[in-house]
């Protein structure tokens, strides 16, 4: 139904889902940009964040604790994966890196399925963020507004980390030339580990934040991973601004298309990607 109220609420939905996609994609893209590894386990890490938060929520009944637990747990899992397996693949071909992270993703998904079953689990948003808020021109679910604010803050934090700290300087220098950074006496290994942890944490954080909007299943990350691919292809692989713009564009495309015909929303997303590929193969913000 094409009317103003519907349009504005879909526009907001697009912003919220777009911001979430931007955050997950930012994690994917800084890992790729720094380590040169396309992490196909990223969707599984997103899923894992939801489940870790779910467990913490069951135990404590506190949504805030659940969010922190989800993000921290996935960050730790990321660091463990990097130290035990991924780091041995830096010198191997791109294809091997893709294959091993793909395999790790499957193992994580199947482990969760083993532990929690295939049925969906749900987390309710905290009581103080339930209900709707009046924006003057429309009523909008409070929790979604909160999600947008939290994700925007998280992206801002990532931005500060990348562009205003010593770690960020090393990361950005590492994207340009990892060998040179190593030669300058900076511990690239530790930076890589940290970046993988932060990237994973971004995915896990998004996973638990998103859990009250959509219920979680072991496969909840599969589609997200593919949408992230579209985001980074549109935005330019390895580009932080590209991930944000790409995420918002992707969110709006899906949201606004579904207003007209929901069955085309995903199709339109991929069509947009094809268009970018045809006109600007390196992506909107890509350089290579």
């Amino acid at each position, binding site marked *: 139904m094409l009317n103003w109220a519907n349009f504005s609420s879909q526009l907001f939905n697009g912003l919220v889902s777009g911001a979430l996609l931007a955050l997950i994609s930012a994690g994917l893209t800084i890992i790729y940009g720094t380590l040169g590894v396309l992490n196909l386990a990223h969707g599984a890490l997103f899923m894992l964040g939801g489940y870790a938060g779910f467990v913490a929520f069951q135990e404590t009944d506190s949504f805030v604790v659940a969010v922190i637990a989800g993000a921290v747990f996935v960050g730790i899992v990321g660091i463990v994966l990097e130290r035990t397996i991924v780091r041995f693949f830096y010198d191997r071909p*791109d294809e*091997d890196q893709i294959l091993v992270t*793909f395999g790790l993703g499957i193992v994580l998904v199947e482990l969760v399925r083993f532990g929690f079953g295939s049925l969906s689990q749900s987390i309710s948003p905290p009581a103080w963020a339930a209900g709707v808020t009046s924006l003057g021109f429309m009523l909008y679910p409070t929790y979604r507004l909160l999600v947008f604010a939290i994700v925007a803050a998280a992206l801002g934090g990532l931005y500060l980390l990348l562009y205003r700290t010593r770690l960020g300087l090393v990361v950005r220098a590492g994207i340009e030339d990892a060998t040179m950074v190593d030669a300058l006496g900076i511990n690239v290994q530790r930076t890589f580990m940290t970046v993988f942890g932060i990237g994973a944490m971004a995915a896990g954080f998004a996973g638990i934040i998103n859990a009250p909007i959509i219920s979680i299943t072991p496969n909840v990350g599969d589609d997200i991973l593919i949408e992230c691919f579209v985001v980074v*292809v549109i935005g330019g692989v390895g580009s932080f601004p590209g991930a944000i713009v790409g995420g918002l564009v992707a969110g709006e495309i899906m949201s606004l298309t579904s207003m007209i015909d929901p069955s085309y929303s995903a199709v339109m997303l991929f069509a947009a990607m094809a268009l970018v*590929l045809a006109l600007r193969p390196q992506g909107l913000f890509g350089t290579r």
Partner: protein
Amino acid sequence: MRVPARRLGNGWLAELILGLVLILAPFLLPSIGATADMLSRILIWGLFGIGFDLLFGYTGLLSFGQSAFYGSGGFIAAYLLVSHKIGNVFLGLAVGTAGAAAIAFVVGLLALRRTGIYFAMITVAFAEMFFFLENSPLSAITGGENGLPNVPNPEIGIGSFDLVIHSPWQMYAMMAVVFFLGYLLARRIVASPFGHVLTAIRDNPGRASAVGHAIQRYKLAVFVIAAAYSGLAGGLEGVLQGYMAPDAFTFDTSGQLVMQSIIGGSGSLIGPLIGASVWLYLRAILQSAAGLGPAWKLVLGLVFVLLIVFLRRGIVGGVSDLIGGWRRPLSDTPADAFNRSSVQVEMAEGGRGERDRSADAPRTKVLEARGVSKRYGGLVANADISFSVNEGEIRGIIGPNGAGKSTFFKMLSGEIPPTTGSMFLFGVDITGRGVTAVCQLGLSKSYQINQLFPKLTVRQNLSVSALSRTRGKFRLDLIRPMSRVPDLAKDIDETMHLLGLTERADTPVSELAYGEKRRVEIGLALATDPKILLLDEPLAGMSPQERAATVRLLKEIARHRTLVVVEHDMDALFGMADRITVFYQGRILAEGTPAEIQGNADVQEAYLGGVHAA
């Protein structure tokens, strides 16, 4: 001399063994719990995997989106058959296969614009697009989430003989025949010049295009071939089940294909079949017998990760390493006869030898740069360079580091276009036409840093170059054996003899010593049979003996060719070149005979910092 184990697979041995296995399987495997249905499915996945192996194992293109073509082929065939638009099941399968190939042509045009991780991501995304298309917008045709039931059984009717294939073992027999034919075709493709170029693209795409192959067209061709295999496999699944399931389009289908191929071993054609056997058999065993239920996938996922970490070449690779382990004799390092003998000749000849073509022969400009500049942002690498080389000349290019020699060389070879100005090769304007076209016109370059095909042997490396000369930049000679390419073996033997690499003919170049690799590098350029050969620091990193031998080799090569050589070894270059061009700060500072250059005060000033002049 080491005979590679791979050679044993040539001839018809692999086909013979496969044929026997396919015939014996129904008699032997049911005793360990395999059913006809399981074996048929294994063959379908194996066929699907053959296409994927051509794409990934042989060409190095990792696609995570093969489900798009599996599903498309399956649904096109199923739709045509279910709606009775086509009555003959085999014709329906053929149309489905062709449809999948046609779709792949369009998808490939976009997806192949990028490589590596981008290609993997883009193929996933396209496959997902097909999944959603099938699911709703096209659901009137595809049945959406319900799929298409009532796919008819195949019928073979010749005269009064009429057979409807419906029992499980009849289905198996049909799948076995189709798989066998698919395998035969793939074996021919792999052994063809086309297949050889694919392996070159896998090992070093940049060099494959530099020696004259239009690699984008090869990639698109193999992408389409892989999709045809996928489409046929998808159609067969519909026929086997009598039902085309929408699962065909899921990411899981693509992922399972990748995992099966890796478990079995990619780059062997048969690996995916072995992987599919392990996968489907273990799934059945783990799910029911071991009572693991849904955890079967966890076990296979762990197996997959372990294989990637420790045994990247899968089961087939592991087995062939075991066999190779017994077979491989103690490694013999043939004494490098090339250096010794050549050095002796060099000393006996004393310098330039007989190659001193008089200057009075009519000389034509074969290579020319007119007013060429190259800028990178604010940096001017080359400024207004006019340069020409005459036929049969050996031209040396010298200059301090950063003088713009390598940039200029890249423009001559077509690797990068000039910012302004034009390039002419035999009077043809080659500005901006790219390295492949320039190579096809008869100019080839050897690189400062080796750009080889590391997994291929010396003979195979040189064949890559030689094929571009005999076949042009692209040819779809899928079923012609390499041995039928006229003069190929003879030319390669001659080139290897010239390079002193005959004894290393069947050694993978990654196992060669540095000096030998350096000669393969020159050989790759030489084997395209160029009229003009550009050599970027051919002596870099060589020992004095190797240098002397290589100088002699270059003089030998120059007897029938024009050479342009960038080199820092002044003694070697001045003893070899007819004329020298000096680059300095992106411009040409001087040009003349070696004697003129040695006496040039500007050159001494610029090049030696005035030390000698002082």
